[in-house]
């Protein structure tokens, strides 16, 4: 509890009810239901100091990825541990404290896409509209899907590493397919967006979610513990 202005008690933002962290040893793994993963993400977002109305969004993005077999939980944990010494204000800037551009907050990168996604995904399908990749760039995927669904769009995302195309992703509101090196989802340096040319090419076998639980290593669970205890 902390004091707000005029001496009134002000509640700390709730971290929600997340499951007790299981007691496991190094080398072991634990299975978590996707809903449990969401609850941890909610708590981690609150602990990091993200705006309260973004906790659920962050949890849902990770859940969307994990339902589709993509390591969103690992991406979030790595992001929070790698940049824990940067303030959120520093994370929200596209320029890192060392002057390098990119590797900024993936959720702010999503907000910055809000007024661009329509233009990026409605024009020439062979022109990739490229942005500098944030850290944990795969966390942008659910953002793009939430735009594509109500618009009935098929979106093509190209993941670049040092100017080289590493991976292509095609998605609509709920379904996704990839072609290339999936590690680019975690370490892309640039990301391009375009409309998928469905009038000329068959739609790849995009698929909706299918996983209800995931396996998490002891190392990751201990990282969660450390982050929540800070």
């Amino acid at each position, binding site marked *: 509890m902390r004091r707000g202005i005029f001496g009134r008690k002000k509640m700390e933002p709730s971290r929600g009810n997340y499951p007790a962290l299981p007691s496991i040893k190094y080398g072991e793994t634990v299975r978590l239901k996707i809903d449990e993963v969401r609850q941890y993400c909610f708590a981690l977002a609150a602990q990091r100091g993200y705006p309260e109305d973004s906790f659920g969004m962050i949890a849902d993005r990770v859940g969307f990825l994990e*339902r589709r077999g993509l390591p969103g939980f690992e991406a979030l944990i790595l992001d929070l541990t790698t940049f824990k010494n940067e303030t959120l204000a520093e994370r929200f800037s596209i320029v890192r404290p060392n002057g390098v551009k990119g590797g900024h907050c993936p959720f702010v990168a999503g907000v910055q896409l809000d007024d661009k996604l329509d233009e990026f995904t409605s024009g020439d399908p062979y022109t990739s509209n490229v942005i500098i990749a944030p850290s944990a760039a795969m966390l942008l995927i659910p953002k793009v899907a939430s735009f594509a669904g109500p*618009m*009935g769009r098929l979106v093509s995302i190209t993941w670049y590493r040092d100017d080289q195309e590493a991976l292509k992703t095609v998605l*609509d509101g*709920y*379904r996704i397919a990839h072609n290339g090196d999936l590690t680019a989802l975690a370490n892309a340096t640039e990301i391009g967006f375009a409309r998928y040319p469905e009038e000329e090419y068959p739609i790849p076998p995009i*698929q*909706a979610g299918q996983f209800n639980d995931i396996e998490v290593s002891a190392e990751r669970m201990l990282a969660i513990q450390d982050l929540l205890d800070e």
Partner: protein
Amino acid sequence: MTFFDQVIQELRSDPRLPILLSACSEGDISVLVAMLDTINALGTTTKGSPNSDLWGCFEDHGWMAKSQTAEATETNLPIEMLSYELTDQGRRAVPIILSHALS
């Protein structure tokens, strides 16, 4: 004409769609959303329910289809159960419908 335009045109030209959608509860709609979110999802409902009326209408538009697998499953219940799955077209059309008809 884009896929989006086609779906909006169908929404505007079929007066049943807004009526059937408005008859559905949040719970009914959440079943559709869960089906969209899940690969090979099968939705089951009772004949005459708001969902079965809506899904039947979606079937007319080619967005849902009665499940062939489920037809073989008989129950002893005194109600008729219907099972549907989303078609490929439906997986793109239904999010448009939900977004525009319910907003």
